C-alpha cells in the first residue's frame, strides 16, 4: 500500500484521542476554559456518566458571536498570541486543541453571550462538521454541551471503565478544581442529583469541607512557606486522618492540578514516622512558581509538568508539612500518635519455663476421626510466641514459624469469601449507627457497588443529601473501625477495574482490618485456636496478599545446622 497523508478528519480523530480520552478529560478541558474566561460559578452536569451528556456552564466573559465558529477550529485560541507566549503560560488552556478534539469525538453545542452583546449566539457541530452560527437567548457566559461522547469511536468506548468509575473520575476532577479555586463556586450534578457543591467563598477550608466533609476539613492544618523563587500554601490533615492510597494527596502548581510522584513523596516524607506503613496522608497543597519556571507542555492532558527547580520545591514542601506537624506535636492529646511505635522487643524466655521439648507428637486417639476437610497442613503443636509476632509450632517435619497476622488474615479471608459465595453474610448490627460522608468520588462508587458491600455484611442507608448511616457491619469486623474499612474498600474499587479483582480486593481489605495485629501478645489458647483454623484453611501457606504465612525449618536442616549430621 502506498504511503498517503491521512485525510484531515481521520488525522483529527486520532489526535483528539490524545486530549480527550474519557469523560473526565472532556470535563477538565471545559472547566479549564471556564476558569480562563474568569468565571465565578461553574456547574458541571452529567448524564450517563458523561457519555450521554456533559454540560459545563460558566458565568465568564463569553465568546463574541463572530468568534464562535472559530472557537471550534483547531489551534484556535485566545490565550496565546505568538510563539513567545509559550514560555510563560499563565492560563490553563493554550493549545487550542480542546474544543476541536471534542468536535471530532462528540456532538457539540456551544452557546455564549458576552457582557456587551445584546443577545447570545449558538453554534452546533454534528458528525465533526461545524454548522452555521445562529442567534440564541443565553445568560452571560458560556455553556458547552458534549453529547454522545465517543459515539463515533467505538474502540475508545470499549476501553472506558464502568459508568460508575467514569463518573467517579469526573467527580475527582471537579473536586480538584473546587480545591484549587475556592473563589469559584463549583457544582457537579450526576443524573440530576447534586453530588458536589463548593461555596465559592474564597475560603480553602470551606472548599475542603465540600469535598472531604466538614469534620475532616475542621481538623486540617494550614501550611505556608516561601522562598524567593516559589511559595507553598495549603491544608494538610493531622496524622490521625489517613488514606490507603495517595489519591488524597492533591497537588497544584500555579493552581493547575498535577500528578507528581516526587512531590507526593515530599508530602509523605514530611509525615515521616507519624503514619503507619501503607497509610497515606490527606493534603491539599498549591505551589506557586514563576510560570517561566514550569513546563506544562509535556503532555496534552497537562497533568505532568516539568519544574526547573524541582529540588528546591521538594524541600520547601517537605519542610512546610513538617513544621506544621511539629507545631501540632506540642498540643496535648496527640502524644500517642507522635511517639514512634515501640520496636518489637525480643525477650528470650527462661529455658526452664519452656515445655519439655520433642517428645513424640501427642498421639491421635479415638480411632476413626470424622474427615476433616482439606487438611493440607500437618497437625502442629504450638510451642510459643516470638517477638509478639510469630507463633512457633512443631510438626512431624520440624519447626514451623507462623506469622500471626498473615495466618489470621488467610483464615478470615476464606471465611469472608465463603460467606459471600453462600450469600449468607454474617452481619452484626451497630448499637448507635455511625454517620459518615463519602467524598463525591467515593459516593459514585457506592452507588454502583453498594450491593457488593451489602453482600459483605455492611448495611448502609442514605442519610441526608450526601451522608450515609452505617447500621451494621460484617461480624468479623466487630471491634474495628468500620468507617475506615468502608472508605478503604471504596478507594480500592476506585482504583481497580475488573470486577473479580475488585471482589478479591474487598475481601482482602476486610480480612486485613479484622486480623490480629503483629505485636499483640497472644495466649496459648488463642495461638492453638488460630493454628487449628489455619490447618483447616484451603490455602494455608500464604496470606491473601501472597506473603507466606509460615516458614518451615525442617528437622534435617536443624540437624545439619547443629552439626549432628
Amino acid at each position: 500500500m502506498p504511503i498517503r497523508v491521512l485525510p484531515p478528519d481521520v488525522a483529527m480523530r486520532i489526535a483528539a484521542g490524545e486530549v480527550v480520552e474519557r469523560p473526565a478529560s472532556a470535563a477538565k478541558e471545559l472547566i479549564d476554559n471556564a476558569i480562563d474566561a474568569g468565571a465565578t460559578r461553574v456547574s458541571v452536569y452529567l448524564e450517563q456518566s458523561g457519555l450521554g451528556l456533559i454540560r459545563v456552564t460558566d458565568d465568564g466573559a463569553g465568546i463574541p458571536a463572530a468568534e464562535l465558529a472559530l472557537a471550534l477550529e483547531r489551534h484556535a485560541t485566545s490565550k496565546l498570541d505568538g510563539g513567545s507566549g509559550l514560555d510563560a503560560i499563565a492560563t490553563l488552556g493554550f493549545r487550542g486543541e480542546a474544543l476541536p478534539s471534542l468536535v471530532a469525538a462528540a456532538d457539540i453545542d456551544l452557546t455564549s453571550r458576552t457582557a456587551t452583546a445584546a443577545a447570545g449566539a449558538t453554534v452546533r457541530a454534528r458528525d465533526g462538521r461545524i454548522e452555521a452560527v445562529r442567534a440564541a437567548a443565553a445568560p452571560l457566559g458560556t455553556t458547552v454541551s458534549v453529547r454522545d461522547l465517543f459515539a463515533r469511536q467505538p474502540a475508545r468506548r470499549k476501553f472506558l471503565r464502568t459508568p460508575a468509575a467514569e463518573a467517579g473520575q469526573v467527580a475527582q476532577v471537579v473536586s480538584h478544581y473546587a480545591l484549587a479555586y475556592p473563589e469559584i463556586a463549583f457544582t457537579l450534578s450526576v443524573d440530576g442529583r447534586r453530588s458536589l457543591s463548593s461555596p465559592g467563598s474564597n475560603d480553602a477550608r470551606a472548599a475542603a469541607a465540600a469535598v472531604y466533609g466538614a469534620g475532616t476539613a475542621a481538623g486540617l492544618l494550614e501550611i505556608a512557606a516561601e522562598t524567593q523563587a516559589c511559595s507553598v500554601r495549603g491544608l494538610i490533615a493531622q496524622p490521625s486522618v489517613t488514606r490507603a492510597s495517595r489519591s488524597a494527596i492533591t497537588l497544584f502548581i500555579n493552581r493547575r492540578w498535577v500528578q507528581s510522584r516526587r512531590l507526593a513523596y515530599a508530602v509523605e516524607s514530611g509525615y515521616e514516622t507519624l503514619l503507619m506503613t501503607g497509610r497515606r496522608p490527606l493534603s491539599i497543597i498549591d505551589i506557586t512558581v514563576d510560570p517561566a519556571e514550569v513546563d506544562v507542555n509535556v503532555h496534552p492532558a497537562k497533568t505532568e509538568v516539568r519544574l526547573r527547580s524541582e529540588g528546591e520545591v521538594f524541600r520547601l514542601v517537605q519542610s512546610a508539612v513538617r513544621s506544621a506537624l511539629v507545631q501540632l506535636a506540642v498540643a496535648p492529646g496527640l502524644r500517642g500518635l507522635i511517639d514512634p511505635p515501640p520496636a518489637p522487643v525480643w525477650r528470650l524466655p527462661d529455658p526452664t519455663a519452656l515445655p519439655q521439648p520433642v517428645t513424640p507428637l501427642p498421639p491421635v486417639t479415638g480411632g476413626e476421626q470424622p474427615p476433616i476437610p482439606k487438611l493440607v497442613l500437618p497437625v502442629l503443636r504450638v510451642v510459643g510466641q516470638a517477638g509478639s509476632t510469630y507463633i512457633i509450632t512443631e510438626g512431624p517435619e520440624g519447626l514451623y514459624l507462623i506469622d500471626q497476622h498473615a495466618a489470621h488474615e488467610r483464615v478470615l479471608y476464606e471465611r469472608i469469601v465463603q460467606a459471600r459465595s453462600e450469600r449468607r453474610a454474617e452481619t452484626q448490627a451497630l448499637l448507635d449507627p455511625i454517620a459518615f460522608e463519602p467524598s463525591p468520588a467515593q459516593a459514585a462508587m457506592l452507588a454502583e457497588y453498594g450491593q457488593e458491600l451489602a453482600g459483605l455484611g455492611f448495611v448502609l442507608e442514605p442519610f441526608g443529601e450526601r451522608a450515609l448511616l452505617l447500621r451494621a457491619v460484617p461480624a468479623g469486623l466487630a471491634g474495628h473501625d468500620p468507617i475506615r474499612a468502608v472508605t478503604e474498600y471504596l478507594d480500592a474499587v476506585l482504583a481497580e477495574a475488573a470486577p473479580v479483582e475488585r471482589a478479591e480486593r474487598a475481601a482482602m481489605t476486610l480480612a486485613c482490618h479484622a486480623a490480629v495485629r503483629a505485636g499483640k501478645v497472644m495466649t496459648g489458647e488463642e495461638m492453638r485456636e488460630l493454628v487449628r483454623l489455619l490447618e483447616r484453611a484451603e490455602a494455608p501457606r500464604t496470606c491473601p496478599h501472597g506473603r507466606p504465612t509460615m516458614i518451615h525449618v525442617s528437622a534435617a536442616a536443624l540437624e545439619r545446622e547443629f552439626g549432628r549430621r
Partner: protein
Amino acid sequence: MKVTCLQENLAKGLSVVSRAVASRSTLPITANVLLTTDNSRLKLAATNLEIALSYWIGAKIEEEGAITVPNKFLTPFVDSLPNDRMELELSPRSKQVKIECGRNTATIGGMDAGDFPPIPTVQGDMLLYIDPVALRKALTQVVFAAASDDSRPVLQGVHLLAEGTRLAVAAADGFRLAVHYLQLSGPVDEKLEIIVPAKAMSELNRLLADTDQPVEMLVNAARSSVLFRLPSIEMVVQLLQGAYPDYNRLIPQNYTTRSVVPVSEFLASIRRAAIFSREGSGIVRLQVHPNEDLVPGKLEVQAKAEEIGGSDDRIDASVDGPSAKIAFNSRYLQDVLGVLDGQVALEVSSPSLPGVLRPVGSDNYLHVIMPMFVSW
C-alpha cells in the same frame, strides 16, 4: 529520710500503688514509687499519668524526707521479707535507700522526688459519697461493656451521670450497652456528668473489695479529673473528654416477647453453644416458644459450625407474648450473663431490633445487645 514500719503494711501498700506504676513509659521515673514522709505516716504513690494511686501506712518517722525508688526492685524485695519491723534509710547524697529487716539488708538507688510528676490534687467542687458494695456491683455489671478499640475514644470510658439522688453508671461499645442505676444517700446539688477510663474503673473495683466505708468521689471544677478516696487510699484519674452518646434513646421502650429464665441455665446453654459458634462468627440463634396451656414455654438456643455440626438446647421459660427469634454474638451473652444471678428477663421485638436483658426483681440494671442478622 529515716522511717520504721511493718513489712506487712509496706507490702500491702506497694501491692496497691504498683497497679499505677507505668510499665512501658517514655518517662523512666514513672516506673518508680514515690516514698514521702507525711506527718506520722509514710505515703506511697505511683502514677502512669492517667491514674495516680496514693497509699498511707503507719510508720515511725525519725527523719523527714522523700525519694523515688524503682518499683521493679522495691516491691519484690519487700514481698520476700519476713513479717517484721523494717527500717528504710535514705542517704541524701548518694540517693541510695537502705532497707533493713531483721538480718536482711538491701540498698536500692533512687531518683530525686522533685523529678516525680506531681500527683494531681483535686480541689473539691462536686463531692459524692457512694456505698462501696453497691458501687462494686455496678462496676462489675458495667465496665466489661466498654470498648477496647480506640476508634471512638469516649467509648473506652465508663459514663457516670449523677442527677437528683441517682447515679447512672453506663458503658457501651458499638454493639452493646450496660446501664446500672445506683441510689445516692442524698441528692446532688447539680447534674454531674463525667467519663472515666474503663481501666481506671477496673482498678477501683479491685480496691473496693477491701472496704466497707462509703467511697468519696470528688470531681474538680474543670471536670478534668476525679478523685476516689477510700480508707488510706486515694486514686486520681484523668477524665476522658468528649460527648458521650445519649444512650437513653438506644434503649428500646417496648417489646413484644419477654421470656424469663434462670441465669445459670441460660449461661450454661450459651457456653455449650459457643463451643460450636466460635468456629464461625460467634452466632447463637435464640427462639422463644410461648407457653401452651399447661406446658411451660421454651427458650431454644442453637449454634452451628459449618461442615461439623451444631448444638440445640431448650430451657424452660416463662414466656409473655408470641413466639420470637433473634441471633446474638455468644460472647456478648456470656459477658452479661456472667455478671447476673437469679432470674433474667430477655425482651425482644424483632430479629433486627435490639434485645434487652434485665434481672428479674430489680430494676436497677439493663443490658442492650444488638442482634446479628442471619438467615433463618
